[in-house]
């Protein structure tokens, strides 16, 4: 199911890549994006610890934007 959804997304992205794309948010329009309150991981050491607790208490893993791997969650 997840893989099928991803394949569909990949096709859509591939189609979009066939046409020229210009940046629609100019660099001078990114002051809000650069604000610290817009960060997915503002404080990595603290965020990682909370992820660790979730991993410990739940069977699910991954899909959180972290490119690390493995768990060893016996």
């Amino acid at each position, binding site marked *: *199911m*997840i*893989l099928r*959804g*991803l394949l569909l*997304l990949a096709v859509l992205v591939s189609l979009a890549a066939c046409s020229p*794309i*210009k*940046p*629609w*948010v100019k*660099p001078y*329009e*990114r002051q*809000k*994006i650069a*604000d*610290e*309150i*817009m*960060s*997915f*991981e503002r*404080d*990595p*050491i*603290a*965020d*990682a*610890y*909370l*992820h*660790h*607790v*979730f*991993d*410990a*208490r*739940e*069977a*699910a*893993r*991954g*899909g*959180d*934007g*972290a*490119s*690390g*791997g*493995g*768990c*060893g*969650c*016996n």
Partner: protein
Amino acid sequence: MRVKPRAVVMAHREVAVAVINRWLIMSAMLLASSTFAAVLPDERIDVLYHGYDGGGAEIDGPSILVRKNIGTAVSVSANYYVDMVSSASIDVQATASPYSEERKESGFSGQYMIDRSTLKFGYTQSKENDYDATTYTFGIDQSFFGDLTTLGFGVSFGEDIVGQNTDPTYKRDLQRRKYSVNASQIVTKNLLASLSFDSATDQCLNLTDDQSCLNNPYRSVRYLNGTGGYLYQRELYPHTRNSDALGLRAIYYLPYRASIRAELRKFSDSWGIDADNAELRYLHPYGERFLFEVKYRIYDQTGADFYSDLFPYRDAQNFLARDKELSPFSSTTIGLGVTYKIPAGFIPWFDKSTANLYWDHFDIDYDDFRDARVSPADYAAGEEPLYSLQADVIRLYFSFWF
């Protein structure tokens, strides 16, 4: 070395679950901090005290992170983490006695920036008296379309050795692999989004059919003994676990200076577990020095195909599990936190410093995991009350930028 009773260690692994992954996630987050532009991450030092208290287990300890740039293209970081465990969880109370233990891990990561690409690597090692884990990670990010889009690929290789305190000859080799794809997008000048897909495989090596490596070697399952009561036998797991996870995250800058963040994740694995979770997080600055955060998260999962709280008889299936983390359950988490920006100059040598306190409360209701600590005289086997768990998690940390 002190040898713990067999079941004493049962909850040891339960409360320590995912320790190995914790640093991996952290190293990835370090690298992900530059997701929306090909720039090196901030140079900083973080000193964290972490505390977990719930379900009879208390785990706390320090974690220290140092991240430094070398020249204009290289960033390196190091992390040291300690878990001090004092456990009397439900598994321990049912079949053993409380115990205390310590676990240490260390890791290093780095990244090298070339134009709009970033190469990333990581190494971590976790050691405890019955479990060693080593993991290597590698990844690459590339930004496109004037840095509006960032596409990343990652892979990790893990080699674990699972031991058992009561049997010095017990040794299980576990091989872990994980492949990740991540796409981050500046959608508008107020909206960021990120889509992540992970595919992971855990594989036991060189085992016979009656051996396992993916379970806690101290944990047992219950089965009916034919006379109204129950007995225990060891768990037995498949030798392989494959899982896929797809996550979507977004942050929106509100019309005033505050942000709201949403996260959705879908997970499924080869053991029959399907899980979903959703989270909302609101971040609100107050004045120039304070940042307040409120969070609400829900999580729901189905149970593994071979999970049962009480099997009908001994060796009822080829695979047997009674790990409550593999049972069907739902949970909610609420979180509150505050960051205080320490006035510049108050702490010399640092450009910026913050003091942070975050609290999260977990409330987990298990749908098919019963509290076997009750007296058999009061409850028939399989009629015990369902278990629920409440836990509080504290993160107190100081961050320094230089």
